[in-house]
């Protein structure tokens, strides 16, 4: 009985590759990593929120496939972001450009600095 079960398990094991799905098989691991990064940072144009990776819309699958082929063609990440922005507008770029939003990034830093100064001066004063 135990042996039978073992054989059965091995049989099940060999059916596993059926579920494996490698859509982007002509990309090397490094390129796949880039694909994942890009798909994570480009918004699905059909959805109100959510990136390409998280979306089930047909367009998202198509776009991921297109990004894969662009990577294969030798486009850099920035060029692919630009390509998508050109077609769908800035709306689809989820990665925030620091140079274009300096105040957005600086204000929290300034607040942090001020509060650190405040706390240190306060504690120094109290210890005296």
């Amino acid at each position, binding site marked *: 009985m135990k042996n039978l079960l073992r054989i059965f398990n091995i049989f099940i094991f060999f059916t596993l590759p059926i579920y494996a799905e490698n859509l982007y098989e002509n990309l090397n691991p490094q390129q796949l990593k880039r694909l994942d990064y890009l798909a994570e940072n480009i918004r699905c*144009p*059909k959805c109100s929120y959510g990136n390409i990776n998280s979306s089930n*819309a*047909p*367009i998202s699958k*198509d*776009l991921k496939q*297109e990004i894969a082929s662009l990577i294969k063609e030798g486009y850099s990440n920035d060029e692919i972001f630009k390509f998508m922005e050109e*077609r*769908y*507008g*800035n*709306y*689809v770029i989820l990665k925030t450009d620091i140079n274009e939003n300096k105040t957005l990034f600086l204000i929290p830093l300034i*607040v942090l600095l*001020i*509060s650190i*100064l*405040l706390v240190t*001066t*306060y504690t120094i*004063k109290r210890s005296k």
Partner: protein
Amino acid sequence: MVTRYFLVLILALLVMMLSIFSLSLVQTDEPQTIKTQEGKKLIISEQIYDLDGNPIPLKSLTKGKVLLNVWASWCITCLVEHPFLKSITESKNVKLIGINYKDQNFNATSYLQKNGDPYEFSIFDLSGDISLKLGVTGAPETFLVIDGEIISHRIGEVNLEVWNEKFAPYF
């Protein structure tokens, strides 16, 4: 003395943040949405076929005024706008060409048989490749193409209101 100075500073910062916040509430700009394809050229690089498998010359799309409508039999909003498209082709001189988006040929033809066929012909786009290069995000979408240039682009349903705003001035 120093703490008071910082308190004033923090208060000023708070006031500034509050004022920026209230200003953003007053602004009634439309929320940023996806860019339409208006002003771009119609790019179709591959050979296209209609639902019966006949090859279509690209000239039939790039010559004169053409209304391109992306539709599919699985798309519910397409069914909603279908009667309006029919009424437009009946009442006005509109060259309406369909793009059958990610659809089975059989389902598409039976859809047209059941609901009527306002299209001169429909481009068969099973993979969605042609549509993707056009900048289509899904069905339904409608393009007004004049001499190969996209003049108007509507993402979503076309009804009388949208028609009057985006397409009517050109007909």
